[in-house]
């Protein structure tokens, strides 16, 4: 009897222990946890849970709120930003996060010039310690979305005792956020545990174990067999439909700022002809892509600025094959003399659905009876090479934002330098000047108007055709509560709990 009670006690205590541990599975990988170098979604996501920035996003919105900076002021010329830091913030080793730490971190990120550093070096002129808890950043030119840039991890403070000044750091960071990293076996798992020194509210779950899987199929199996509590990035769309029918699994869908679009190289024939670009714009069938390929797990998109973001305007027209045909005929193409074009995609970079998307697009363009499409593909590294060198005329691409602002959805595609690096080689001095005016403008309403004008230009010049906006998906066991899929794409482990 004694033995039985002992075993029972052991089981109960084990159950109690395991309920405090949240297990998350993913197919993503961590590349680096140095904010100065980190420029991929999942690594940033870990940092967002173990570090704090000057500003943060209000939970479940894209509104910026104070975090390490209790408040900030902008000089009348829009060039100098002064941040007043909170005094109770420290790293887990007790090092206070003051103005000198902020200066060290931002200067370091710019000096090391890692992958995301251009977000700062393009704008920041200099940094200055005003006093222990007052920190100043001077810009090269007024940029109204600057505070949004500070929301990205590249501008977040690192512990000077750990992160060397002249080299990237490859270990786990010293924590200043809700969690600290207590174990990290690369590509196997990373363990986050409650950080008692964090100034904000304590996490709902003390310990989170994130395990890494090689494929979407094993991730699904791990969830269905109860090996993990949450599957976060990336389940196959068809698997998601199956999981929705599984009574033991919760599938949560949320808005995502990820957009997918077609790029048209405006310098390469026949896409150098605006009539051809417009004809393609009228012929693409967004709804069919969404229905057939993503089984409803995406939304048709009619602007480069995603839905839900301020200034978004549905500027692109609905599908109209008659108009597409008329435009093609005006451009000199007929059924007997069809327009033959290549459509490119990359087979692995955007998941397993890309070939199907290309096929649906081919069929929708060929429905005009005047276009013949050859589908071509290249591995991601070759693909990037091709679009930067202008080899491809029409190709599929996607975009995750660096900072949550319409500027990040228009400037990179339409500014002269940006368009080159995105493969459309678009140039329009009028659009350029409107976007520059929007960057300087501080008033959101006035900026919104300027971005509306920019979006109108998109339909006239058609360097890009937005196709669909992603839907973020998380699948979890039924007893998991507090999962939020936020518009900012920040996945906050510290809000999740096991009931």
């Amino acid at each position, binding site marked *: 009897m004694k033995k039985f009670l002992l075993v029972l006690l052991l089981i109960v205590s084990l159950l109690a222990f395991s309920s405090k541990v949240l297990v998350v599975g993913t197919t993503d990988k961590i590349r680096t946890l140095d904010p100065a170098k980190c420029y991929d979604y999942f690594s940033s996501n870990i940092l967002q849970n173990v570090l704090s920035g000057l500003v943060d996003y209000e939970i479940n919105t894209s509104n910026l709120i104070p975090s390490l900076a209790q408040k900030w002021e902008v000089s009348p010329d829009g060039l100098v930003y002064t941040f007043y830091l909170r005094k109770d913030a420290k790293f887990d080793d007790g090092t206070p996060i003051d103005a000198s730490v902020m200066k060290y971190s931002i200067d370091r990120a710019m000096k090391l010039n890692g992958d995301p550093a251009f977000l700062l070096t393009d704008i920041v002129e200099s940094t200055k310690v005003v006093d222990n808890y007052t920190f100043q950043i001077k810009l090269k030119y007024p940029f109204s979305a600057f505070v949004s840039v500070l929301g990205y991890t590249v501008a977040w403070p690192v512990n000077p005792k750990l992160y060397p000044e002249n080299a990237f750091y490859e270990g786990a960071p010293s924590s200043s956020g809700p969690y600290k990293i207590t174990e990290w076996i690369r590509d196997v798992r990373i363990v986050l545990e409650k950080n008692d020194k964090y100034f904000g509210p304590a996490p709902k779950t003390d310990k989170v174990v994130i395990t890494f899987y*090689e494929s979407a199929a094993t991730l699904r199996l791990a969830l269905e067999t109860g090996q993990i509590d949450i599957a976060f990035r990336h389940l196959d769309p068809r698997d998601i439909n199956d999981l929705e029918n599984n009574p033991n699994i919760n599938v949560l869908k949320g808005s995502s700022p990820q957009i997918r679009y077609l790029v048209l190289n405006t310098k390469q024939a026949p896409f150098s002809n605006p009539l051809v670009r417009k004809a393609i714009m009228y012929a693409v069938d967004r709804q069919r892509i969404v229905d057939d390929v993503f089984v409803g797990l995406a939304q048709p998109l009619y602007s480069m600025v995603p839905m839900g973001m301020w200034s978004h305007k549905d500027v692109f027209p609905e599908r109209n094959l008659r108009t597409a045909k008329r435009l093609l005929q005006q451009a000199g193409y007929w059924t007997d003399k069809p327009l033959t074009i290549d459509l490119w995609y990359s087979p692995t970079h955007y998941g397993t659905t890309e070939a199907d998307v290309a096929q649906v697009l081919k069929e929708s363009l060929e429905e005009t009876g005047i276009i013949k499409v050859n589908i071509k593909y290249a591995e991601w590294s070759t693909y990037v090479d091709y679009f930067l060198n202008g080899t491809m005329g029409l190709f599929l691409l996607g975009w995750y934002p660096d900072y949550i602002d319409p500027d990040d959805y228009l400037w990179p595609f339409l500014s002269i330098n940006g368009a080159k690096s995105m493969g459309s080689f678009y140039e329009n001095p009028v659009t350029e000047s409107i976007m520059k005016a929007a960057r300087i403008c501080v008033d959101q309403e006035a900026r919104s108007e300027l971005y509306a004008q920019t979006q109108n230009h998109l339909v006239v010049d058609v360097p890009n055709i937005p196709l669909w906006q992603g839907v973020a998906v998380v699948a979890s066991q039924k007893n998991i509560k507090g999962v939020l899929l936020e518009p900012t794409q920040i996945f906050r482990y510290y809000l999740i709990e096991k009931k």
Partner: protein
Amino acid sequence: MSLKDYIFTRILLAIPMMFILLIVIFFVLRIIPGDPVLAILGGKAPQEVIEQKRHELGLDKPIIIQFFDYVGNLLKGDLGKSTLTSRPVWSEIKDRFPATVELTLFAFIIAVLIGVFWGSTAAAHRDGIIDVTARVYAVFIYAIPVFWFGLMMQYYFGMVLRWLPVAGRLSPIVSLNTKTGFFLLDSLITGNWEAFIDVLKHLLMPGITLGLVISSIFLRMVRNNTILMLSQDFSTAARARGISQRRILYKHALKNAMVPILTVMGLQLAILLAGAVLTETTFSWPGLGSYLVMKIRYRDFPAIQGTIVFFAFFVIIISIVVDIINALIDPRVRY
């Protein structure tokens, strides 16, 4: 040729072999389209950042200089840094290799056990039920694609029966103090029995999948060679002296049959180490095979080169060892 000379020649021959391999890998990687810097940064980064990164990685130098730089560093034992993570390739290989070795050895033991015991028993009962079953098994199992077999195992033992975990090396809630990277060994050293059982459970499905597929090769070889040995004069003489069939099989026939098979087994082990890619990917096994696949996708030149050179070095070492063992057992191979 004396044994010493033979070993010396064998090692000397390995050097040009490695060098040719290095040249092929290095230049093939650079001839095929795709730029590692662009693969990492994509189109988002400005041209100056791309140029700086290219300079940082030495990719702006003439290709021949890059090659000699690479070989020079290699001779110093430096495999370079991964362009994707900036970590030394050697550290990444060290992180991943124990997982591959653990899986491969486990699979190899299964394959050898099945191959030797079933193969020799099949030979002893030629054309009997055991032999026919063995032959059918060998053909059937060899024809099955390893990833499909793995998926079926995952479905049945993981999903339906829920006996075994479907992926990974360790359960998320099981803690393990990793010292060597060989989880079985680590759990034994630290006396962590919970982890030991858990690691073993994780090892079972991928190990059996890979082991069964390889077992067919060993089974056929052992069977055929044992049949040959059983028909030799020494076996007939042994039978005439009234020695039991069991003793003839294990003491005489199998022992002689194993000499050429050991060579194949040795090489097969080396190939297994380098070729567990599909099994590792199917079972999300964080070994070098899945690492290589990931690095190829991103054109991470130093990582791809480093991994292949490492594998090649390993295969060459094993083949030298096998050759030496062969030369020791059978002096004829030295001539």
